[in-house]
């Protein structure tokens, strides 16, 4: 099927909320730094950020700066804006993050036609301002 350009969903319709476990991720995103939650004891990465490390039980956390690149693990092609039902081609992607083994982000990808997105495609972070002055990590074709 032919869909045409993949677009990120409009940031002004997107809201997030945070809690003390997740807020450092979003504070870093505000500064256009992509990070992931790393155990301060054993170095295991986990996302979304949670209170303790599932491997060793430690509460210590690091928030390293990641390269901001990744690989498409899977995706769907959608053609309606979920907020208003209007025609809108967007591609939700599940992205394996470089520099943080085992972690993923769910985002939109742009910079190519929707039908050209494929598993294994290299992507780079693309920052989208959203409601309440937060910033969302999306991706574009690398």
């Amino acid at each position, binding site marked *: 099927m032919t869909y045409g350009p993949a677009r990120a969903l409009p940031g002004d319709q997107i809201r997030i909320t945070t809690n003390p476990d997740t807020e450092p991720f979003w504070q870093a995103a505000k500064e256009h730094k992509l990070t992931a939650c790393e155990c301060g004891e054993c170095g295991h990465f986990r996302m979304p950020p949670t209170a303790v490390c599932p491997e060793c039980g430690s509460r210590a956390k690091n928030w390293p700066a990641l390269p901001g690149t990744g690989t498409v*693990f*899977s995706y769907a092609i959608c053609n309606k804006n979920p907020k208003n039902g209007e025609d809108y081609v967007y591609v939700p992607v599940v992205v394996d993050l470089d520099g943080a083994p085992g972690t993923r982000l769910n985002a939109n990808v742009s910079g190519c036609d929707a039908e050209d997105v494929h598993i294994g495609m290299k992507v780079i972070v693309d920052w989208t301002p959203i409601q309440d002055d937060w910033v969302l990590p999306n991706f574009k074709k690398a």
Partner: protein
Amino acid sequence: MAWVNQDKCAIVGVGSTDYYVRGKSWPRTINDMAVEAIMNACADAGISHKQIDGFSYYSTAGAGYLDKFDTASLMETLGMPHISWSATLTSGGGGCPGAIGLATAGLMNEDCTYSVTLMALQQLPQHRLGVVFGSAAPNPENSFLQPSGLVGPGHLMSVLARRHMHLYGTTQDAFGEVVMATRANTHNRPKAVRKEPLTKEQYDASVMLADPLRRLDFCLETDGAVAVITTTMDRAKDCRHKPAVVHAAAHGGQREWGRAFAWMGMPDPHFASSGHKFTADRVWAQSGLSAKDMDVALIYDHFSPMVLMQLEDYGFCEKGEGNDYVLSGKLRYDPVTGKGVNGGTPVNTHGGNLNEAYIIGMTHIVEGVEQVRGTAINQVKDAEFALVSGGPASLPVSSLILRKD
């Protein structure tokens, strides 16, 4: 090792309301439908609804997606004199057949004597499952999912299906065959919502809602209620019908599946799966049986690719071979012989969530009961064992094996 509660309890009554297209059950209330289903199930069992003293729910006692069952309200409504068991499995529809295992726990602990498991669903415009996810205020966890626009269950499932296609060469033709094979079982079912035969051309023309999934890969949106009564085998002998014996029941799952498509963190090969491997292995271990011993499989079918992936997880075929298994016609029921086709096990002889009605899995239990009673509309000849599955969803998912008495 055989399950300690194997063959100790049985489902003795099943009851339902009519099935309505989404929203059409109004002005009936959801409790009106729930109590009709309970009373019908009790009549089927040959007991009074005032003998019910246990409630074994799933989906966190949810009635649909925004309503909740409340035991106190139900027992006041129905005039039950007392209750001594009121429990639920957590998460959502994945716990449906597992709730029969929960009932068994209450019965074998001598907390209750007759347990009801029920679901009622009324999708008024503001209650549609497809929009519940998207309209919910994002909590800190789903703030890592919802902004991607993966807001409906069909969006989520399409991402899993895509990975399965990538890893194993699975085709959309196989998804279509799941829908067509089970549609072929509803033409003679008076209560089924979709009864007309489905051609491949019609399937291929179905609108793409979340590529690679078409509208017809999504289950129905229906209203209605279904209840089933579980009791101990000694009491079951006095009921109206032959008992549908609870031979094995399990719920749960493993960490790699976890929240599943509520986050998308599953590693391969779990990502492109139904998350059922763990409970499948448990019911096989509890029973000493395997997929080839099942005479009929009632497989939770909210989305067609998840049927294919469950067939792999339960071992009807090898992992990654679901495409060929499905396309060889092995899901189909042959009404002439009363058996499967091409050596397969008939799947969803009632039409399933895709074609008959979607009451969050309860219709699969009803069909399992009717098959081992020998009274199903599309009766599998000499059916002894029926597999019932629930989910795939965030854990727990669950499984049930019913045996002919």
